[in-house]
Structures are given as structure tokens and as C-alpha cells.
């Protein structure tokens, strides 16, 4: 493995700084209807680690997200990602740009959010931010997979409800690879979560229950227009836990257990996010805007 190939994943991992708000969603894959607060920037460094299976190699796929609250009804996000397979190689696997829009301006029993994403990635991508279609690891070397570009458009319908301090979220995913004739691929993600305490104490405690939220996610593919259904699809069940380690920083962890025969048996996910409050105000000052 070239030393230069190690730099990107190392930077992405080292970039982790301390932060999570207790009310921050603990989900890794599922989206709820709560958008980033306007003018705040959240820097998130995460990694998906796949355990080896019958035909799968172990891997680590670090990624960094920059999430910005453009408006109270519009959140924009940029991802960069990489992947490293022990005994094989390391590669930059591309970038994604996503936008989430909230069409209804009040809280309802069910709150929809519309999600649009453009992905410029390659086939070595393993962050599994969503699972769609009929998925499977071909076992090809990372160097070969990273040569196969994939320009993809992805949309999601996000439905989410807050009921008695529980959050329930359902995501329905449609993805189209513009580089290959794979038809439209479908997937889903479901999540439920709750903070461990619902009343804030006056103290700045680090280990009190109010700083933790726990939940469960389930996600997987639903085939494509070429082969719709559960045949040859991957599904995971994943407990999730988040911990607000400081006023601006949080850590999330999730072991996802495979429910079917395809894919890595276990995906470990870990993430660290840091919220820069008033980022837009500070940038606007630099460019002469009204802070």
C-alpha cells in the first residue's frame, strides 16, 4: 500500500473533534425531519467498518460531511469519502452533494422532507449511507473498482414523527445510476429513537442521561425496476447510540447486524460531529453581508 494512499483516510479519521447535542439524531442511515439550524455548520467525521464474510473482505470506509442550514426549511450537505481494504489498497471513492427541503412549515403528526442528492463516486465506495437495489461484494480489487465511475441521482421521501419524546422516521429511496443501465434502484430505512432523559439539568454534566439518545435502525435494498423485490438484497438491523460529549460535539456508534446472506456480516459505524454555531453569520461578515 502506498503511503500516499493512507493519507486521505487518516486525515478523515484524525479530523474527528469532540461534539453531540442530546437532541441530535443518533441515526447513521435514516433521516428524520429535523433539519440543521439556519447558519449553523456541522462537521461530521464518520467511518463504516465492515467485518469479513464468506466472499467479503474487511474494510474501513471513512467519510466527512459538511452540513449547513441554509434556511430553516433547507439543509445542504457535502460529503467526501474513501475506502481502505487490508491487504489490498486504499482509494478516494468520491463526493456527494445533497439537499433536504421541508415542504410543510409547521409540525404535523407526520412530517415530510424531500431529499435530492447527486453522487460522483466509484464502485469502491463502501460507506453505505444508503443501501439500494441488489447489493453484493464482487471481491474485485479496490484499484479496479475505483476505476469504475458512478454518477448517480438519488431521491428520498422522508417521513418523520415525534410522539411522546420518541422519534419515528421512515425513508423511501429511489436511485438512478446515470453511468450504467441498472434501472431505478429502490431501498428503505426505518428508525426509532429517544433521549434517555427528557429534562435538562442546570449542570454542565458529561455523563448524565440527558446527554445520551438511543434507538434502532433497519435498512436495506428493495431491488430495482429490472429485478424488483427482496431477492439478492441486503438488510441490516442496527442499534444506535449517541453521546453529547461537549456543548458542541457528539459521538455516535452503531453495530449493524446483517439479516440476509449478502454483504458484510456486521457493519460497525462510528461518528464524531462538531457544530459550528453561527458559521454563516461569520462568513457573511467576511464578505460584507449583514451578520
Amino acid at each position, binding site marked *: 500500500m502506498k503511503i500516499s494512499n493512507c493519507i486521505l483516510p487518516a486525515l478523515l479519521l484524525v479530523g474527528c473533534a469532540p461534539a453531540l*447535542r442530546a*437532541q441530535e*439524531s443518533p441515526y447513521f442511515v435514516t433521516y*428524520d425531519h*429535523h*433539519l440543521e*439550524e*439556519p*447558519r*449553523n455548520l456541522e462537521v461530521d467525521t464518520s467511518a463504516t467498518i465492515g467485518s469479513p464474510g464468506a466472499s467479503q473482505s474487511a474494510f474501513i470506509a471513512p467519510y466527512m460531511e459538511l452540513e*449547513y*442550514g*441554509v*434556511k*430553516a*426549511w433547507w439543509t*445542504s450537505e*457535502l460529503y467526501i469519502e474513501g475506502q481502505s481494504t487490508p491487504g489490498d489498497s486504499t482509494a478516494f471513492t468520491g*463526493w456527494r*452533494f445533497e439537499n433536504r427541503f*421541508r415542504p410543510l*412549515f*409547521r*409540525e404535523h403528526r407526520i412530517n415530510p422532507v424531500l431529499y435530492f442528492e447527486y453522487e*460522483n463516486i466509484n464502485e469502491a465506495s463502501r460507506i453505505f449511507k444508503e443501501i439500494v437495489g441488489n447489493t453484493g461484494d464482487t471481491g474485485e480489487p479496490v484499484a479496479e473498482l475505483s476505476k469504475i465511475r458512478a454518477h448517480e441521482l438519488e431521491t428520498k421521501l422522508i417521513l418523520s414523527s*415525534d410522539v411522546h*419524546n420518541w*422519534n419515528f422516521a421512515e425513508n423511501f429511496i429511489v436511485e438512478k445510476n446515470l453511468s450504467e443501465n441498472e434501472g431505478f434502484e429502490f431501498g428503505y430505512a426505518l428508525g426509532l429513537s429517544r*433521549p434517555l432523559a*427528557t*429534562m*435538562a*439539568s*442546570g449542570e*454542565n454534566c458529561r455523563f448524565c442521561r440527558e446527554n445520551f439518545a438511543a434507538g434502532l435502525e433497519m435498512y436495506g435494498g428493495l431491488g430495482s425496476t429490472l429485478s424488483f423485490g427482496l431477492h439478492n438484497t441486503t438488510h441490516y438491523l442496527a442499534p444506535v447510540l449517541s453521546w453529547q460529549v461537549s*456543548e458542541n460535539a457528539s459521538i455516535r456508534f452503531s453495530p449493524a447486524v446483517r439479516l440476509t446472506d449478502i454483504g458484510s456480516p456486521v457493519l460497525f459505524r462510528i461518528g464524531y460531529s462538531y457544530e459550528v*454555531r*453561527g*458559521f*454563516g*453569520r461569520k*462568513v*457573511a461578515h467576511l*464578505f460584507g*453581508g*449583514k*451578520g
Partner: protein
Amino acid sequence: MKASTIVLSTIAALFLASIVAAQNQQSKSDPKWVAPADAAAKKNPLAGNTDALAGGKKLFMRHCAECHNEDGSGLQDAANLQLPEVQKQTDGSIFWKITNGNVKAGMPPFARLSDTERWQIVSFVRTLKEEPTGSGK
């Protein structure tokens, strides 16, 4: 120059422009932003609870002070919470506004906080008082 470089540069420029453009808003009261009568009639279950008030202050500093300022006096496009037109509203009305926000005007909904936490913030908002303008001397 590669097409992907052009696309990425364009996205970065749009992103930066959206940040600057999003700032130019001014605070003004929204006459249509009124809590429904049943929501406005709700009582604060934590009224008079000093422990809840302390937590409410912490939550306010974390979630609200960025726009409303630490003393609630408001920054640029956010309301001054010390003003009588805010303080005369019922606890239920303030709770409803924290829950739903005024998304069009830039105030996000805070339904992600628990009911208890939102009532804690209401308790703290009640403590925000306008400083006397004169010394009285």
C-alpha cells in the same frame, strides 16, 4: 479543466452565495404567526420549578442565544424576547412557537427537544426583562 472540476466549483460557489444571501433578513413581527387558542391556553407544568429553570437557561444558551442573544435582546433577524409584546403572550403560546418555529421567517422548529425541555425554555424566557434605559439619577 475537467467537467467534474467545473461542477464542483459551481457547487462550492453556489454554497457560498447561499450563505451570504441567507443573511439579509430583518426582524419584523409576523401577524400571521399566532398560536391556536387551545395551544395558547396550555399552562406551563414547570412554572415555579427552580431546577427546571436552571436547565432552561442552559437550553436557551445552547439553542436560542445564537440568534436571540444571551439576554434575549435579539440579534439582527431574531425577535427581542424582552419586549412586552413577547412577554404578554401566554406560556402556551410561547411553547407553541418554540415547537413549530416560523420557518418562512427563519425561526426553526424545536420539536426535536422534548416537551419538558421546551417548557423549561419557556420558564427561562419568562425571566428575560428589559434593562431600564435610564439610571434614574
